[in-house]
């Protein structure tokens, strides 16, 4: 193990190589679910569990599966895990499933999951792969939640509406009305608003990165995005 590699994994997942903000993957479910912060949170958590379990499974079989057939094998594993998650949520977390039900099958098409399986889990040990899945998932969740919050506040003037439905009654306090008597801004609830909000969030990340890097890097060229992992 290289020194500080756990730190690298964590940093990569949450910030540097964040699924949305760094790798720009999984934009399709992103636009579909981030109408509210709550939906973003739910989708993020569901994807995180798939990322962790698929990371583990892929890492476990990485030496037995030959290079030539690894992609179909990974797709198979991910699809099976998502289907199992869908069944389990339908049976035991029914309220959450009613909110997210439509989006769960979409997790299969989340290229970030295959991307991590191919770029990380298939080359690293089980523990690392699971940590990477967890951190990538949390980074994804945070990005979804931030974007959902921006769109929800601008679009409908509320924040975390329906959180008690997703997380249970104790979380009722999360539900706030930010702008009372707001008449709504439909554009931001619809996918185009997602793209617009996404642009601002990306720009914000860029500015923060630039500040952190100090003035030496002040003339960063546009397009200095982390290279997208192959196979994603």
């Amino acid at each position, binding site marked *: 193990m290289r020194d500080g590699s756990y730190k690298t994994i964590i940093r990569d997942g949450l910030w540097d190589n964040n699924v949305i903000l760094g790798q720009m993957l999984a934009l399709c479910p992103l636009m579909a679910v981030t109408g509210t912060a709550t939906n973003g949170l739910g989708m993020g958590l569901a994807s995180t569990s798939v990322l962790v379990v698929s990371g583990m499974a892929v890492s476990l*079989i990485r030496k*037995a599966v030959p290079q030539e*057939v690894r992609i179909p094998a990974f797709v198979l594993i991910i699809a099976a895990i998502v289907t199992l998650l869908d069944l389990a949520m339908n049976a035991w977390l029914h309220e959450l499933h009613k909110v997210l039900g439509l989006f769960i099958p979409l997790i299969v098409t989340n290229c970030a999951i295959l991307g991590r399986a191919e*770029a990380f889990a298939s080359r690293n040990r089980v523990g690392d792969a699971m940590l990477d899945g967890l951190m990538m998932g949390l980074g994804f969740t945070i990005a979804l939640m931030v974007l959902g919050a921006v769109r929800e506040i601008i679009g409908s003037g509320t924040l975390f509406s329906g959180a008690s439905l997703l997380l249970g009654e104790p979380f009722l306090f999360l539900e706030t009305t930010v702008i009372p008597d707001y008449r709504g801004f439909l554009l931001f609830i619809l996918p185009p608003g997602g793209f617009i909000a996404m642009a601002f969030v990306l720009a914000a990340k860029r500015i923060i990165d630039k500040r952190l890097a100090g003035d030496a890097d002040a003339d960063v060229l546009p397009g200095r995005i982390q290279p997208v992992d192959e196979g994603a």
Partner: protein
Amino acid sequence: MSEDVREVDQDRPSAPAEQASAWISKAAVLFRCRIPIDAILLGVLAMVAAAALAMGYNATAEDIAKRKAEDLMASLVQVIPSSVHDNELLADRRHVVDRVVYRAKAGPIVTAAAYEVTVNGYAGPIRILMGVTAKGEILGVRVLSHSETPGLGDKIEVAKNDWVRSFERLSLVNTSTEQWAVKKDGGRFDQFSGATITPRAVVKAVKAGLDFFDTYRFAIVRDGGEVKE
């Protein structure tokens, strides 16, 4: 390639996996080509996945069926008030033409029925559950699922707007055919600002539901005694 891809882990080779890959290379030599090996491996993996899915399905099937019944019951209760029946709604179901009708009975007498109607809205099918008295008067209408525009067409949900309640107590007798339309089309139902197609579709569906009840009324209430007047 980003930096998180480290050198293939040098340390601690996992024994069974190593063995497996050694076995695979040996077999490859035997077959003089890897393709059959790869195919067999994929097949085995698919079998493992299929087995896991079958087990998962079996483990959850019962609970999922229960949840579904609970959901249905929760909707039925909203369109058929408990005051009009004393039977188990889910138990008394019958197939009439192409749909399932749930019958509410007070003693042996059928007092009301609930069934689903489906219509194409603005952005896909809208599934509606409606409850109707034996005389053909609407008790309640609820939208079960839809994919209408959030903020515009979704006012057909009772959680968002009282609009669906405007159907209550209407029937083919007290509302003429021309009135079964949104106000824009000369009818009696409100449309929403910015969304006319959705309420128009729902009105059409509810009217079709009443027509269905009118046509098959005998088949729906038969054998449970006479129609309660």
